[in-house]
């Protein structure tokens, strides 16, 4: 069963600014891979969710104690643009 993929929508969701040519290319590659991946639908027997962690871990917490934060200069040294202690970015067009 050929899977119809709205590749432009997926690329938008993933914030990937791809050309139409690139999008076409990825669309057909994804189709091939998904065809193979769709084999998961052939699972026999009683499906169940399984445990979230192979060793069945749960309730992993840390105590509510404040610890030293990073040095701001070291942090901002990696920033593409910063000013007065802030990271600087272009304005957002949409509001979440």
């Amino acid at each position, binding site marked *: 069963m050929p899977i119809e*993929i709205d*590749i432009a929508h*997926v*690329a938008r*969701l*993933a*914030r*990937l*600014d*791809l050309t139409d040519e690139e999008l076409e290319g*990825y669309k057909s*590659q*994804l189709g*091939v*891979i*998904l065809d*193979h*991946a*769709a*084999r*998961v*639908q*052939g*699972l*026999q*027997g009683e*499906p*169940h*969710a*399984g*445990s979230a*962690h*192979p*060793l069945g*871990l749960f309730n*992993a917490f*840390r105590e509510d104690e404040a610890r030293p934060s*990073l*040095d701001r200069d*070291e*942090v901002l*040294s*990696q*920033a*593409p*643009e910063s000013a007065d202690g802030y*990271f600087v*970015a*272009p*304005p*957002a*067009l*949409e509001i979440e």
Partner: protein
Amino acid sequence: MTADAPTIVEAGRRLRSGETTAVELIEAVIDSAHRTEAQLHAYLNLDREGAREAAQAADSDLAAGRDHGPLHGIPVALKDNMCTRGLETTAGSQILAGYAPPYDATVVRRLRDGGAVIVGKTNLDEFAMGSSTENSGYGTSYNPWDISRVPGGSSGGSAAAVAAGSALAALGSDTGGSIRQPASLSGIVGLKPTYGTVSRYGLIAFASSLDQIGPLTRDVADAALLLEAIWGHDPLDATSYHGAYPDPRARLDHGVDGMRIGVVSELAGDGYEPAVEAAVAGMVERLAASGAEVVELSLPTFEIALSAYYLIAPAECSANLARFDGIRYGHRAVGDTAEALMARTRAEGFGPEVTRRILLGTYALSAGYYDAFYGQAQRVRAAIQDDFASAYRQVDALVSPTSPTVAFKAGERVDDPLAMYLSDICTIPSNLSGHPAISVPIGVDDQGLPIGFQVMAPALGEQVMFQVAAEVERQADFTARPTLIEVAS
């Protein structure tokens, strides 16, 4: 010229007997790198200065009676997806070109605390996605056994360095086989520990529920030693196991007499090179001859393991890689709005394989498709765990080839993603189950290319896994070494 660097155990003996120093060890490693890097490109960043400083400190400490343990003074290379404070960490991607983390990964801290000498950062498929290292944003690495071939991936740089002697050991990461498969293709030992036993804090995430850091070494005893040095509970990793850890070295000399070993019938046949199958079958016979009870077992869910993996891993990676947006670190493209900047940055910074997987993962999670794809893949995963559980009620360990083929030619599979993915068909099941697995070199094919033998064990079954692996190593008596072309320095 052959590479004949010492093992960690041997180097440690020489250090303590005074036959050598940490400085000598690192200089030999650096020299080896100088002679081979032009051909291999195993390293993205050979940190000569840092390594020499660490070696000197290791020597003074030893002289002063401060012995930090088995890794003291040992040159270890790190796959470049592990954060090293102040030292460029790229994850093999252009999107992190020039990025220097403000912190060390937990495993890095443990190595440093253990006196290890960090040689540098090795090459990898971009964000650990690949099986050949050809997806690196900085050019591929090559195989010391044949430099027209790949060393495997994604920890190809680490594997090549250890095989060539330009590190005595290395750390890699394994999400679908990325330690074991390159170890197999490069003729060394590589293992993926039980999920949760080695901290992922500071490992640049690919697929969170599958990633594990593990050792690449020259032999099985070294792998056990290095594993012990890096594993253990980490409060900074919520998925970190806080129960009792087995002693991986306790049964190294015990042999396999009386053990039950299962051969996985699904991991054979079409797509497997005859030389690989023959070598593996030969080793299975030798194990039987050494006293193991060998049975053939069918784990039917293994047929769809690859499919489940190629839904779960991309889904998780699509979210893990969302943070690379040009806002706080890394590459930033030009853009008038935040949205445009992010989308342009990511398109410019990510290579095709990464882009492919992000798109795949985003699709598998998206509205209307979640249940049929991601949801279903998780159910398959649970079924795989059930198959393993039932198998381990019958046997102590499972064995198979590590990879269906030996090292393939560079360029051979790059244009066929599915063909590339098939390299991981033997290794993926134990990532999905979280169980430990190791690859041991057992021979070469008629082209002189190494063949790897995989031993899988139940969760926290490293003791059993090493026990079988050590016997495999003894039986294989693998003494072949890669033939490297010398380059005038």
